[in-house]
């Protein structure tokens, strides 16, 4: 009996000391696990054809540029452009597309990958893309290879009406079609969350039929309202961007991969004075508050990396600097480190990706505030083992 008692005691003791940090980490993880996403995708579609719809192509290309800038790789962006306006003979700036009359930013540079172009942009292909029902020969680059950990940003622009959106001047997709496609995606575990954004006339009717969970939607105009273009380029001779997209981009231009802006900030930036129509936001199907949803959850591809900040520089090589040994310096270093660390631990799930369940000692070791506990624990364990083995 005595033999087994000491190791058991040691384990129990260690469990008690370690209990607090472990349970903390666990709760944080549970509450966030539903919204955990590991990859970001974007589907960006312009549905209208013809030269006078230049702005729809510019809208889409601007969005494409933005999500790419925020880190979603081309392989995870599906860009559908229904017409090639860059090479339209009417384009005074051949091979170039601009979204502003100042023509500072060229959108159709060398680094554009259009997945579906021209007459490939059809309702059928869009639905197939969402539900991933393709014949075998469909190349992987033209598929939406999402899983249950994917956050998808879907952006549509074109000419719409009450619960429909025109494709190619020839066919249309209804709100029900998209809703059912989303439901299929949900059933097939093809997304974690969807942010559906649409810039058309009467856009808000497009998301009115959605019923699958974890979808947040945003449209440019209410029922019976038109969405307007923002301005024309008088040399190109067409309107170059729509108001809703213009102001969305204006907001997104200030976003970087590390920005803490949330969707609520984006929604708050829309005003009737700017957009000239009533922007609609639907959060009914979404169980997070837009206040808590970072812009980069959808627009970026932010892989969270937790950076350990040990009290001492583990890789430090002594170079003979006496200051390194000065008590004052050392103390300050410790203070700084703990100050920096605290908000990280409490506010965010910084521990969530670190290996929970790994060595207790390591965990305890890391917590510099638990210095005393950990040294006592070590001593205790050594003493226990000593006693246990000494007996024999």
């Amino acid at each position: 009996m005595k033999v087994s008692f000491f190791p058991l005691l040691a384990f129990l003791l260690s469990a008690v000391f370690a209990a607090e940090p472990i349970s903390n980490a666990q709760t944080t993880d549970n509450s966030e696990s539903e919204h955990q996403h590991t990859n970001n995708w974007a589907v960006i579609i312009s549905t209208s054809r013809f030269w006078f719809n230049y702005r729809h192509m510019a809208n889409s290309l601007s969005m494409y540029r933005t999500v790419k800038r925020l880190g979603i790789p081309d392989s995870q962006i599906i860009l559908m452009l229904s017409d090639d306006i860059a090479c339209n003979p009417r384009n005074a700036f051949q091979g170039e597309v601009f979204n502003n009359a100042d023509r500072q930013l060229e959108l159709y540079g060398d680094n554009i990958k259009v997945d579906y172009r021209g007459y490939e942009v059809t309702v059928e292909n869009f639905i197939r893309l969402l539900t991933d029902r393709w014949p075998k020969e469909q190349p992987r680059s033209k598929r939406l290879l999402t899983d249950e950990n994917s956050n998808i940003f879907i952006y549509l622009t074109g000419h719409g009406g009450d619960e429909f959106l025109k494709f190619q001047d020839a066919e249309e997709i209804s709100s029900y079609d998209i809703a059912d496609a989303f439901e299929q995606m949900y059933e097939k575990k093809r997304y974690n969350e969807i942010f559906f954004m649409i810039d058309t006339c009467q856009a808000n009717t497009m998301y009115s039929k959605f019923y699958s969970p974890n979808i947040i939607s945003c449209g440019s105009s209410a029922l019976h309202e038109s969405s307007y273009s923002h301005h024309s380029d008088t040399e190109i001779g067409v309107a170059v961007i729509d108001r809703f997209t213009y102001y969305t981009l204006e907001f997104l231009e200030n976003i970087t991969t590390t920005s803490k802006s949330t969707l609520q900030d984006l929604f708050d930036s829309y005003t009737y004075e700017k957009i000239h129509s009533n922007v609609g936001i639907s959060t009914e199907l979404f169980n997070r508050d837009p206040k808590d949803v970072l812009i980069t959850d959808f627009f970026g591809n932010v892989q969270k990396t937790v950076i350990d900040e040990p009290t001492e520089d583990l890789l430090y090589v002594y170079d003979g600097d006496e200051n390194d040994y000065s008590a004052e310096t050392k103390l300050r270093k410790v203070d700084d480190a703990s100050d920096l660390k605290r908000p990280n631990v409490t506010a965010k799930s910084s521990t969530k990706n670190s290996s929970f369940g790994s060595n207790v000692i390591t965990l305890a070791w890391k917590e510099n505030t638990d210095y005393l506990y950990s040294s006592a624990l070590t001593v205790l364990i050594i003493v226990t083992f000593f006693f246990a083995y000494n007996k024999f």
Partner: protein
Amino acid sequence: MEGQNRHTYISENALMPSQAHPFFRESEWNFVRGYRNEIISMMHMPLAAKNQVFNDLLTEMGYKTEILNYTDPETGIEKPTLYAIYHVPKGDDTEAMVLTAPWYNPEGKFNVNALALSLGLAKYFRRLSIWAKNIIIIFPDNSDDVLRNWVDAYHTSLDNTGGSIEAAIVLDCPSSKDYLGHIEIEYAGVNGQLPNLDLVNTAIMVAENEAVKVSVNGCPFGQLWTNDYYSRLCSLVNGIFEIAGAGISESLNAQCFSGWNIQAITIRAIDGDRNDITNLGRIIESTFRSVNNLLEKFHQSFFFYLLLDPKIFVSVGMYLPAGGLAAAAFVVASVNAWVGGNDASADVISRIQHSLLIKSIPLVAACLTAIASIGVCVFFALYTSGIFDQSMEFDPFDLTYKWFVLPLFISSLTPVVSYFLLKVKISADYTRALSLIVLFFMGYALVGLMVLNFPLSFVIAICASPLCFVRYASKPSLKRRLINSVFLFISCPALWLIVFGIIHKTEFDLDRLRNIVQYFEFSLLQKEVQNLLDYLEDVDPQVFLDGPVELFIGLLKGYNRVQCWTWIFVCFSWLPVWISMNLIGSIYVYDEISDKEVEKKNQ
């Protein structure tokens, strides 16, 4: 008026008029001035030499040029047409836009500014990189037969072409000044084929963005700002006659492009100093850019409309009932002839009982008469239309008066003459059936025409409407015969030929009439009457005789020149119906009731 018309709007999204900034400005003005000096200096050179100079200029600019030879069949003068095509590098080479600058405008003036501006624009268009449709610039000697010949040749025999022509603008700007007042847009097309309203709207919108005032239907400058009932009515009437008369007058301008599915307008610059020549250049540039933006043919908007104002139009649905009512008069008269017998001397009600039945022999006879008169008239129409092609020597004056006007005038007196001379009687069923058939035919033909060419149908319906009141009589009555003669006379095609001919020749200004009616004052009337008297004193009476001759020749030539159906339609409907009604009005019928009563008594 309210609710019966609408404001014009651009229906085709692709056009986007005035969205692009036109750059035809001061620097181009210098080129236009230079070209103008050149053109003035070679004013007296022969056409071939002038063409050669232009040819060199355009070739240097990078246009592909060619000359289409044309010999005037009447005078034998050679009038080669130079045209230049810019095959745009980025377009698919299947569609084209046309700018036409005739050397001489319809009044015979040297079209200096139009020519200079066309060259300036040609040079300028070459520098723009936005063209998706080819650009063709034509320099015909004049804007009637020579241009029409080019248009026909382009679609049939020419090798050097630039695709189907989507839109055409004919420029008429004979001034040699740097400034112009406002512009007039003519949109009438042959056989009621108007250019798509979108093109007209585009040109008007572009012009208004350039702050250039636009006049349609020959609206005078002073009336451009007014928008009251009389000014619009005046404009409407002018517009109706302009379209109804399309293809007949000597100057065709944009009408030359009719029939080939080309939307064509004429832009005429009126002298003044409100705008400069580059304004006109920018109007053409912007209009071309809009047409260039098109992806399909013009198909939105309206092909049938009446413009009251540059910005107000009456759509086909609104005006058709008017034409329908005018045509319905004949149908009602026809039914009246059937049911009521069209017998002036009989009591209608008493006849109804046995009137719906027409005996078969008279019915067949009536049908044959109607068909024969229609056949003869159509043959007459086709024969007369071809007269000028068979190089037969005809004196137009003789042809008009000896062979058309006088015979018709004399025969309109037949009812009276026959009262004294011809005392044959004929079955009442025959006259009844004949009037039933021809009046119904007239109504039917007018309705058919109305859909295609409302103005012509409407004008003919109004002019021929007295035919409805020509009636036969079983009892001899001089009064009835006189009435018949009067109705036949005022519905006679020859009379209206003379009326319209004189109106056209003397350039009757409806606006002055409107002015008197609208702002009636005795002194104003006095002044106008004085003006009229002065005019009559000054004018050569020959003018009044020449007017109808010119109109008649225009009618006859219309079909061969521009496939204008007006004369053929007149001979197909109006003339045979008039002849048939003349017959009906001139003969006696057996009084059937009295005859039957006699029969009954005999039994």
